[in-house]
């Protein structure tokens, strides 16, 4: 099963025999409120260039002054008898560190992954986190696993932690320790919040009858919440668009024949799902078989291999990558840097590779913001003062001053940037949609009282607004 991503709501799905990851699209927010200067990159703490090479000893655990290393540990699901493997996250992280090291590293030190731990199905997450904290002597920890049960341990240890955002643990749980040390590739996840992007997309494409499909609660708790969020989004922001078919009771590996029959009878034009790639592939094939010409929105579909080999079943479907799409021209310097480096070093660039790369870059940002006398706590604190963190402008800026709060009950925690970048699949290729040159993100006001705009803002968050 491939990696799951999506601009915003990502879910992890537990399944009977095991676990499958599923994702739900829609998004995290995208805000480009009037307070955001359009077409400019986020303002980040600036660090004097000379300071970046300054070597200050005694930086604490995880920083080896003799070997001149900043050591990190990675915990990823590498062998999983029942679902996803996320080892490409490590590839992306390693690639980013290699690039930085080739440029001299930071503060006179190299960035080194000292241990790559395997966390089978997330089952040993707690155990691996504990072992890593005790044994790896790592300055920071990177996590890409199906389950993140070790989040509290990392929080208690105040360990700078960088995760692939498929889990909601970035937010501080009710009654648990503060998770302000945990940073993800997306802002705070809200599975059930109403958002504007999807209704806007449906209305732009002229759809008035939509369907929403999700796994049953037993298969994935987040999938059902995600579906409910979609439903509410249409109801709140586009009352003229009707959800004519809604099913949040699909078992894993379900037969979806009848769902498609019923969708056809209801005249569905647009389908939003909170399911993993395999299920949407099955859905696409069944729709084709039954002659239902509805368009899918594929939150997890940014998989070049899978789409190019899908035999055209996804043609006309929409995709929202969680970072600046590679297809957008002119490519942003950060995108180009990633693609060039991976190409030169024979690393296959996939979605998860770029997520690993981005999280490496976010860590580096944290170090830069903390300054030459960095410590673990200083990195955490420095990042948490950032109101628009977006390494190289690759992702929608995250406001770390509020993104450790669960936005389910506090929508403001979703941040002020509610943006998405849209691609359409044609002939096995991704074509950018609704974009302006150099401005990959389509952004909306987070204020629920502001109606759906006909022409939302187009923004770039790259330094200097270069795409």
């Amino acid at each position, binding site marked *: 099963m*491939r990696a799951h991503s999506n601009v915003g709501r990502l879910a992890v799905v537990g399944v009977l025999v095991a676990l499958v990851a599923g994702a739900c699209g829609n998004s995290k927010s995208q805000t480009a409120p009037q307070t955001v200067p359009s077409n400019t990159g986020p303002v980040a703490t600036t660090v004097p260039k000379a300071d970046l090479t300054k070597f200050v000893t005694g930086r604490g655990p995880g920083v080896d002054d003799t070997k001149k290393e900043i050591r990190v540990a990675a915990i990823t699901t590498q062998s999983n008898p029942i679902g996803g493997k996320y080892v490409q996250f490590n590839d992306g992280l390693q690639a980013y560190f290699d690039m930085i090291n080739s440029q001299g590293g930071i503060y006179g030190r190299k960035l080194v992954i000292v241990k790559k731990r395997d966390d089978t199905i997330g089952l040993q997450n707690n155990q691996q986190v504990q072992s890593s904290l005790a044994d790896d002597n790592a300055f920071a920890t990177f996590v890409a696993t199906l389950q993140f*049960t070790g989040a509290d341990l990392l929080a208690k240890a105040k360990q700078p932690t960088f995760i692939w955002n498929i889990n909601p643990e970035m937010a501080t749980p009710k009654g648990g320790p503060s998770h302000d040390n945990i940073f993800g590739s997306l802002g705070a996840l809200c599975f059930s919040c109403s958002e504007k992007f999807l209704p806007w997309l449906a209305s732009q494409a002229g759809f008035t009858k939509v369907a929403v499909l999700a796994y049953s609660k037993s298969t994935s708790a987040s999938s059902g919440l995600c579906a409910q969020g979609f439903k509410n989004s249409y109801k709140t922001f586009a009352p003229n668009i009707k959800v004519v078919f809604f099913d949040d009771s699909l078992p894993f590996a379900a037969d979806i024949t*009848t769902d498609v029959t019923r969708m056809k009878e209801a005249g569905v034009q647009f389908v939003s799902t909170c399911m993993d790639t395999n299920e949407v592939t099955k859905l696409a094939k069944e729709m084709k078989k039954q002659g239902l010409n509805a368009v899918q929105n594929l939150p997890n579909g940014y998989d070049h291999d899978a789409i190019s080999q899908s035999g055209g079943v996804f043609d006309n479907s929409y995709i929202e990558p969680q970072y600046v799409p590679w297809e957008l021209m002119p490519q942003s310097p950060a995108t180009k840097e990633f693609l060039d480096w991976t190409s030169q070093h024979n690393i296959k660039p996939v979605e998860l590779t770029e997520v690993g790369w981005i999280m490496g870059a976010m860590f580096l940002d944290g170090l830069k913001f903390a300054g030459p006398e960095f410590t673990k706590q200083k990195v955490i604190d420095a990042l948490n003062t950032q109101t628009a963190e977006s390494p190289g402008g690759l992702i929608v800026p995250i406001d770390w001053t509020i993104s450790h709060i669960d936005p389910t009950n506090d929508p403001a925690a979703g941040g002020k940037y509610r943006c998405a970048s849209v691609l359409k699949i044609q002939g096995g290729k991704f074509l950018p949609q609704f974009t302006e040159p150099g401005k990959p993100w389509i952004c909306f006001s987070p204020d629920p009282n502001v109606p759906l705009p006909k022409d939302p803002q187009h923004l770039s968050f790259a330094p200097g607004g270069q795409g």
Partner: protein
Amino acid sequence: MEKLLGALIDGVAFGCVYALLAVGLTLAYKTSGVFNIAFGVQAFASGAIYYQLHVNDGWGILPAFIISVIIVAPLIGAILDRFLFRHLRSAPSMARLITALGLLVAIPQIVLLKFNQTEATRPTGIVPGGDVPYHIFGATLSRDQLSIMVCAVIVAVGLVLVFRYTALGIRMRAVVESPRMAELAGTDADRIGTAAWMLSSLVAGLAGVLLPTVTSQVGDIYYTTLLTAAIAATVLGSLTSIPLAFFGAIGLGVVQELLNRYLPTNSVLASNLRPSLPFVVLFLVLILSPRLRNKRELTDPLSSVDPPPPAPAAGQRSRELTIGTRVAGVLFGLGIGYYVFFHGNASVVGQGIQVVIYSIIFCSIVVITGIAGEVSFAQATFAGIGGFASAQLSSSAGMSVIFTIIIGGLIAAAVGAMLAIPALRLGGIFLTLATYAFALFFDNVIVSLSWVSGGLFPVVAPRPQLGSIDFASDRSFLVLCLVFLVIVGVIVMQVRSGTTGRYLSAVRGSEVAAASVGISPTRARITAFALSAGIAGVGGALLASYEGHANKIDYNATLGLFWVVIVVTLGSRTVEGAIQAALGFVLFSARVLPDWIPWIINHVQPFLHVDSLPNAVQFIFFGFGALTYAKHQEGILEANKVKSLAWVQGKIDRFKSGGRTKPGAAAVDTPGAAP
């Protein structure tokens, strides 16, 4: 009317998917006496090879089909028969089930060493143009679906004919009934057995290449999920009737499709019933079907002349050796304890806690499997019941955590007893399947309730406090867990050596004979189930408290299968065995694979640097370990302990006699040794 007809046809089409698996599973049981829970992963092996050859390497359909289905699948069957199941013909059905369980754990990992299932998302069937649709009475069926339906019918009809009208079919059944009697009648049991395994593996291979067109991916999880659903149909046929399994599977598909069609999709009923229907059906059939009432399992009537399994090593050694081993054990335990408490870092202490908690949970398997002789696939579920109950009571109701841990155990015990009561009339494999159905139902329905598991965020499970003693720190919590382990260990040992244990042993040996001397098998089994579930519940509650949350992943039914595998591999008859299994379960992934083995590899040679070994190795290791269960039902470690003790005892006797070897000095019997 057209809608109904369309739903019925769609139901029959999907029912044929179940049918192919249900018929294959029935065939395996009928021809080998093995409830081959690994049938799905055998299918996966063929499916992976077909995908690799046809899709990845561009081979034509026919050559890829011949290699994967006609050649490799039967070859796998022949290998399994030759090296495993041939030696298990007279073994108890539980031994055969455990062996199949080992294969279920190991085979996918072996296939995945070479096959990337995450990218196997473009499966094609065995007919060109598989996507071409045909409109039939309101339903739309693809050519691939039609090919599955045709194959399912051909397989079912063909097998019925083979068993009814051919000598081979009758001989296959005879060999399963009693290989010794069949051989007395001039049948080559080995050859027939091999043929039977090759035939059932052929069906698995066929299912392997056909089913991915339905699931859209070649992944072991899909085969196993579909197989789990197909078990209900297999049980409808009492594991032996191919026509009933076939029609049961079709019926299941039709009912599912009708529910899909007519239930409101966002109703509570739909969201609970749709994912759990196969397990509800399975449980109900097991409980209610008169055909299964005290159904005799396929076992060799002559097997009763086989000697009973050897007594535990602890029961065979001499007094000096007992004292010696106990002193050594205590010293070793104290040494480890000293290191963990006074020198171990947080990781070591954490692993120590996990070893102790899993030892408690695994003691529940000692009770139900090692003492009562039954196999339960619901031990993880019972642990979950204890974990969720304790977490909810402590965090929501504010009750004392220590108290909630005990209540969690009592609730799990009550559920275990309630499960045992209706399931008691079942024996052996059917009882095991009932526990499995219950576990899957729990996973699919109960766990999804937010008042049980907490929903998206797991329920917080605080650490206990006893008066002024706070167990918030890991070291103090380890002490508490050790206290629980000692209590549980003493209970288990008392049960084993006390009246209940003797009753259970008697029932295990011969239920009828036990009843004739006034022992109530019902009472004995309910006691075993309740005690076992209660112990698992206490362990589950401690696990939640240790982690700070009751995480549902920790109590997944599939995980429970792996627990059974690891405990029976290392020793399911003693508390010691449970502790060894816990050590293996925790340390393999925490230490052995990421640290110890790489350290050894990196220090013995300069060419290859290994950072960490994948956890897949653990599954292969213990999966294969379970294959030894039939030979060493006491567990590998226990078996080797018996051998070691015999050796040591020989040395002691030799020393005592001044170097002269006394006839019959080896006081400890080696299992399997000639009398």
